[in-house]
Every structure is written in structure tokens, then in C-alpha cells.
């Protein structure tokens, strides 16, 4: 055992492996940050080059891209509200607002540190308890997935503060839009209006980019037409980074969010998106200042970023122990392992323990490189925001167009992007919160298909959700979450009313 650990460590710190991990991480951050280039593409491009490399060297590069890609997505999300990857969806709730306040340096440095903590936490979890954790992954069948997705949807009640009703409407619109495409159970074609490009549904990343980035550009444009001065943000503030105290204050938050991310990552097919939203909501509930969430709050960002990077180690658990990839990126890594003649699954640990430990250590090393590269780049990236809006905005639009086209090399995706940009603008103008729609779009396929699968399994007996213990517990937690959010909201409104009442009285 100890021998294998040392052999693995030796594999991971060999010069070739270190170099591969470093290049991979740098490439991952770049691919993650640029909309249109994804970690998935990066790893796919890499695979033919790894045919003749040692397994740990090849995997070091792939893990670097994976880890760097999840982190890099947040950079563009924070700076220009154009997420480079779908995994950075939740980043949009706090990141762009912090930039608007001139705190982009703080936001980026917190993202870097939170991502590293999340990544390292999950790497340790993977290393120490992977085989035991794999059992959890298998205990999740359709009813449990349904319950988890409902739990995710209940987060809507927490991220639409101010107007829960409008938040719910926004989520419902998201659920409706998600029905476009092939019916997941019968395979029938739904709501595609005869457009073949819609057969597989609305492409998520183009929708995300349009919804958040293009809508913002339209709003800025409108502000320019109204004659507002948009260059009032000062760069001096932008490059300030977080202090040690900021990290200490978020200690519990960071670990809780990392644990949530790792856990959700272990369950195949749930993904980083949900993990961040759940961690965000938990952080808000536990926070002393929940009213600041959504206005560019460091706590919220710490939660989403540590959670989505913690998914990386979690997702490797089912991949390595069961040969079951949890998302597209790990699916490609499965291909990468197979090309090496290594078949992931129960036998990998007994047949190639030195490779497995080498992979664990490479993951840790990739996270350390991410920290170094990220902190080094923070000041540079933060200055991006000093570019005059009149120049930055057209660049953002160009990025959006290129980004949505190149995900699937599809012209239609550009139309999707533009349509969602308009939708996002209209919703913003009428006071409908955007994140619930996004969350619903992510979760709808999970909710619908797992509900119907579970009903098929039980011969249309809905009690299956309550008789299976895990599913029942998760559903109860979801109800608890909604109730707590409603109570918090009421309290907040009462406080505001009381405060208004007081000032009213004092005026009188």
C-alpha cells in the first residue's frame, strides 16, 4: 500500500508529468475562460497526443485542463458576465455585481482561493475514501435523482429574494423552454416547430451567454443612449485583492461548500451547476448578512466557486472506481484512459495502484498550479475592466457570437444566443430575476426524465418517492429549505416595514 503511494507520488512528480500538468492547467484556464473553447474540447484535442505518453503524464495534462477549465470559466463570468463554461453559471449571481462595484480583483482572488480549497478538499476525499463513496453513487436511482433535482429547484425560493413570485414564474418559464427537443422517455419530438437544430433541445451554453452577457450589453447600450457616464469605476480599486481575514471569515462557508460540491460530484450526471447553486443557498441561509447576497457579496462567490471546483474530485470517484463518467469531461477522460489500455473500474485499483495514486497526486498538483497561475494573473485580469466600456462591450459581443458558434459549430446557436439576450433584457427590465430560469433549464431534464423513469419502475405508483429512504429524506429537506426561505423572506419584509414605519413615525 505505502509502496504504491510512493510509486504513485514518484510518477506524479516526474519532470514530464509535472510539465504536462502545468501546461494542462494553463491550457485549461485559457480554454475555460474563453467562451466557445471548453475543457471538453481541450481534452479531446489532447487525446491523440497522449497515445505514446505514460499514463500518469497523459492524465496529469487532462486533469490540469479539467481543473483549470472549471476555474477559468469564472474569470470571464466575473469580468464581463460571459461565462466561459456552463459550470460557471452560478458565478453570475455575485461575480459581475462585484465587478460593477469595482471589486474585480477581490472577486478573482477569492475565486482562485475558493477554487483551490474546493479542488484540494475533493482530491483528498477522492484519495481517502473513493471506494466507499462509490457505493453512494450507485444507491442513486431514478427516484433519488428526482428528489435531488427537486431539492435543487427548491433553491429558487432562495435566489429570487425580493420577489419570490416573480422568481417562481421565471423558473416555470425555464421548465417550459426545457421541454423543447426529444421527449426523454418516449423519444417523441416536442415543441421544435419543425426545426431540426432544436431536436436535441436548446443548447445550454449559447443560451447562458445570451441570457447574461448580451442582455447586459443591451442595458449598457441603453444607459449610454440615456447619457449616463459608464466610466466612473476606478481601476485603483479593481486590482485590490482579498485579505487573509476575508478567507478566515469564510472558513466554514468554504468547507461546507467544498463538501457539497464533492458530494454532488460523486453522483453521476448531476454536475457542477447544481452543486454551486445548492452551496450558494446554504451559504445564504447560514449568513449573518443574507440581504447582501445578489449584490456582489464575497460570501456568495466563495460558496459557488469552492463548490464547483470540488465537483472535480467528486466526479473522478465514479469514473475511477466504477468506470462511470459523471459529465462530458469525465466521459472524455474515460476515453483517454481506455486509449492507454487502462480500463477504469473496480480492477483499476488492484491492477494499477501506482497509476491510480499517480492520478490522485496529479490532481493535487494541478490544483496547486491553478492557485499559482490564478494568483499571478489576478492583477492582470482585474485591469481588463479599465478598458473603456465603448471598446469592451463590442469585444464582449464578438466573444458571445464566436463563443456560441464554436461550441457546436452551429449557426443556429448564434440565433439562440441572440434570442436569449433579448429575453434576458426584457426580464431584467420587468424585474424578473434571471438565475431561477437558468437553474430550471439545468434541472428540468433531471426532474422530468427521472420522475418518469421512477414511475415506469414502480408501475405508476407515486409512493416510490416516499418508500425509498434516500429519496424521502431529500424531499423532506427540500420542503424544509423552502419553508425556511419563506420565513426568512417574511422576517426581512417585516424588518423593512418596521424600519419604514419608524422613519415614517419620526417624520410625523
Amino acid at each position, binding site marked *: 500500500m505505502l509502496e504504491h503511494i510512493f510509486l504513485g507520488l514518484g510518477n506524479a512528480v516526474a519532470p514530464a508529468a509535472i510539465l504536462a500538468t502545468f501546461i494542462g492547467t494553463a491550457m485549461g484556464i485559457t480554454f475555460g475562460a474563453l467562451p466557445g473553447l471548453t475543457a471538453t474540447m481541450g481534452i*479531446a484535442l489532447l487525446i491523440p497526443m497522449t497515445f505514446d505518453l505514460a499514463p500518469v503524464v497523459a492524465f496529469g495534462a487532462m486533469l490540469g485542463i479539467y481543473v483549470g477549465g472549471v476555474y477559468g470559466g469564472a474569470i470571464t463570468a466575473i469580468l464581463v458576465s460571459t461565462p466561459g463554461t456552463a459550470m460557471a453559471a452560478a458565478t453570475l449571481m455575485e461575480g459581475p455585481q462585484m465587478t460593477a462595484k469595482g471589486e474585480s480583483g477581490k472577486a478573482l482572488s477569492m475565486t482562485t482561493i475558493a477554487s483551490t480549497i474546493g479542488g484540494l478538499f475533493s482530491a483528498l476525499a477522492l484519495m481517502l475514501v473513493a471506494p466507499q463513496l462509490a457505493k453512494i453513487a450507485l444507491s442513486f*436511482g431514478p427516484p433519488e435523482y428526482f428528489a435531488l433535482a427537486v431539492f435543487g429547484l427548491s433553491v429558487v425560493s432562495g435566489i429570487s429574494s425580493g420577489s419570490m413570485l416573480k422568481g417562481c414564474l421565471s423558473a416555470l418559464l425555464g421548465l417550459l423552454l426545457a421541454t423543447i427537443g426529444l421527449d426523454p422517455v418516449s*423519444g417523441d*419530438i416536442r415543441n421544435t416547430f419543425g426545426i431540426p437544430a432544436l431536436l436535441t433541445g436548446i443548447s445550454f451554453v449559447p443560451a447562458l451567454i445570451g441570457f447574461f452577457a448580451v442582455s447586459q450589453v443591451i442595458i449598457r447600450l441603453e444607459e449610454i443612449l440615456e447619457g449616463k457616464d459608464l466610466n466612473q469605476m476606478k481601476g485603483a480599486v479593481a486590482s485590490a485583492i482579498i485579505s487573509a481575514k476575508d478567507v478566515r471569515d469564510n472558513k466554514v462557508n468554504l468547507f461546507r461548500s467544498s463538501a457539497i460540491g464533492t458530494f454532488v460530484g460523486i453522483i453521476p*450526471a448531476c454536475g457542477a451547476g447544481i452543486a454551486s447553486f445548492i452551496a450558494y443557498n446554504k451559504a445564504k441561509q447560514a449568513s449573518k448578512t443574507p440581504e447582501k447576497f445578489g449584490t456582489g457579496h464575497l460570501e456568495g462567490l466563495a460558496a459557488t466557486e469552492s463548490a464547483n471546483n470540488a465537483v472535480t474530485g467528486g466526479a473522478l470517484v465514479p469514473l475511477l472506481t466504477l*468506470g462511470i463518467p459523471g459529465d462530458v469531461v469525465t466521459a472524455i477522460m474515460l476515453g483517454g484512459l481506455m486509449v492507454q489500455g487502462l480500463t477504469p473500474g473496480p480492477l483499476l485499483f488492484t491492477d494499477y495502484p501506482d497509476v491510480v495514486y499517480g492520478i490522485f497526486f496529479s490532481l493535487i498538483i494541478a490544483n496547486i498550479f491553478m492557485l499559482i497561475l490564478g494568483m499571478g494573473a489576478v492583477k492582470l485580469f482585474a485591469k481588463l475592466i479599465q478598458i473603456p466600456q465603448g471598446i469592451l462591450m463590442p469585444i464582449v459581443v464578438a466573444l458571445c457570437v464566436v463563443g456560441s458558434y464554436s461550441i457546436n459549430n452551429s449557426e443556429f446557436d448564434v440565433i439562440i444566443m441572440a434570442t436569449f439576450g433579448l429575453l434576458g433584457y426584457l426580464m431584467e427590465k420587468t424585474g424578473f430575476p434571471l438565475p431561477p430560469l437558468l437553474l430550471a433549464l439545468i434541472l428540468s431534464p433531471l426532474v422530468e426524465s427521472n420522475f418518469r423513469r421512477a414511475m415506469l419502475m414502480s408501475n405508476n405508483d407515486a409512493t416510490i418517492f416516499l418508500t425509498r429512504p434516500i429519496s424521502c429524506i431529500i424531499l423532506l429537506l427540500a420542503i424544509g429549505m423552502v419553508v425556511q426561505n419563506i420565513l426568512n423572506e417574511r422576517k426581512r419584509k417585516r424588518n423593512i416595514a418596521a424600519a419604514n414605519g419608524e422613519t415614517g413615525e419620526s417624520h410625523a
Partner: protein
Amino acid sequence: MKSKHIYSLVLAFCLVFSSLVSAQAGQKAIDNYPDRSVTIINPFSPGGSSDIQARIISEALQRNMGQSFNVVSKKGGAGAIAMLAAKNAKPDGYTVILTCLGPCSLTPNRANVGYNTPKDFRAIARLSLFPFAVAVRADSGIENFNQLLEYAQKTPNTTFGTCGAGLLQHVLFSDFLSRQPDVSMQHIPFNGGAEATSALLGKHVVATVQTASEYLPHYKSGDLRLLAITGDERSPVYPDVPTFKELGYETITGGTWFGFAVPKKTPEGIVLKLQNAIKDALNEPEVQARLEKAAIPASFLSGAELDAIISSEYKSFAKILKSSD
């Protein structure tokens, strides 16, 4: 009168000459092929087994033909997006699609997607053939395929999972069940093979019908038992698994194949050139070793042979999908 003759003579001359020139230009294009980079369209996600095959072969073609072969993913629309892009490309051999059974015969028979495979495409060569297999957990107490059918007869709502609704695995096994008068099973479609496998391992479904390669790690570890496999012969990877044929059953197809195709009007010379290059690549020991490591069952067929398979499958899927409506 005479001047008219001269005109016609000149005209005829021009016609002959121009057709000669264009024929020569055509021949030149074939001889020089490829004189710039070639695009290979992959209808699925980068990194999937189609992408890995495309990249292994393109690397060999690049080495042997001296031009780069770039793999571009155009996923979506159950393969229709990529097929349409290939159909509308210039028929000059510089845009090639790595397609498979689904986008060729299943998708266009399910919805009006704007192409008819036998009419709009011609095949260059088949690369690989993936058989499908039925599996249960090793601790399920079901030892062979007939026991599974008996179990399904006795137990109402016996479930089988596949990688998705309306996909080949589903169509194949539903068609099989429809021909077994006393057996009925409940289909549970999952989102991809990985989810289906994990549901089988976690005891959420009784059996699954999937591409055999999906089972490999769990077959090796002994957690899953494969009961029957499609195809004419047993797979060398799963030598103890009987074929449906051996068990006395028929399936609509022997498995899903992957192969290259181009727009119908692509010149014969270019198609043959590519076909031979692919054949040579598949004979290289290095390429063979890579495909084997990646669990891709290479299986070459010429363009003409693959064309014949496509037209017959296109017809049979049209029939089955119509009857199931």
C-alpha cells in the same frame, strides 16, 4: 448555308474542347487529391468513441496522404445537423463525415430532417462494428438469456434500461420483444450508457441493452453477466457470450457501425482513393493496437458494400418505425 456549317463546326469544337478541359481538370483534381486539408465531421461529442476513431484514423491518413485531416464536432439533432452539413458541402472530397447507423437510418426515418441517406450520400468505407449485448448483474440469479425471458414472464414490470429513448438499443430490443408473444418488459430510457450501467449496478433495473463495450470493466471484474450479443459471430472480447443467432433469435441489426461517407456527387476516383487509404491505415499494426486499446472493434468494408448495407437498413428501419407508431 456554308457559314452556318462553320458555326456549328466551331461550336462543336468548342464543346468538345471545353469538355476535354473540364474532364482533364476533374482528373487533375482526383490525381492531386488531397492538395489541401480535409475536414472530417463528427456528429457526436468530442472525446466519444466516434471522435477517438476519427482521430486515430485521421492521424494515419495525415501521415500517408501528406495533408492534415481535421476532426470537427457538429453534434445535435440526433446526428442530423452533421449529416445536413455534410450533404450541403461541396462534393469534392474535402468534407467527409464519420457517420454511423443512427444518423443514417434512424434519424431520417423518425423525423423530416431534410436528407435521405441512400439518395444523398455515398459511403467510402466502414471502420468498425460495435455489437449490442444484454446484461444483468452477476448476483441476480439469472444465468442465461432464456432465464431472463422466463423471469420476465413471471414477474410483471421487469425493467430493462438503455442509453436513450428511440435509440438503436431501444428499437432493437423492442422489436425483439414484439416478436416474443408471452414476454413483456418495461423499457427505462436513461441519458447515455454510463447512467444506464450505473442503474444496473445499483439494482435499479433488472437488465440493460447496450453497446457491448459499455460493459467491459464490469464484465472483467465479474460484476455483470452478459447474456446475449448481436452479430454473426461471438466477439473476441467476450468469448463466452452467445450470440442471439446461436440462441435461435433474430435481431434487426448486428450492431452499430461507424464509417466514412461523402455527398453523392463526389467523384468516384476520390472515393476510391480515400477508401484505399483507409484500408491501408486499418492494416497498420500501430493503428490496430490503438483501436484495440480504445476498445474499438475495427471491421473494414468497402464503400460499395457499406452502401448496400445502408440502403437495406434504411428500408427496414422505415418499416419498423412506421409500424411502432
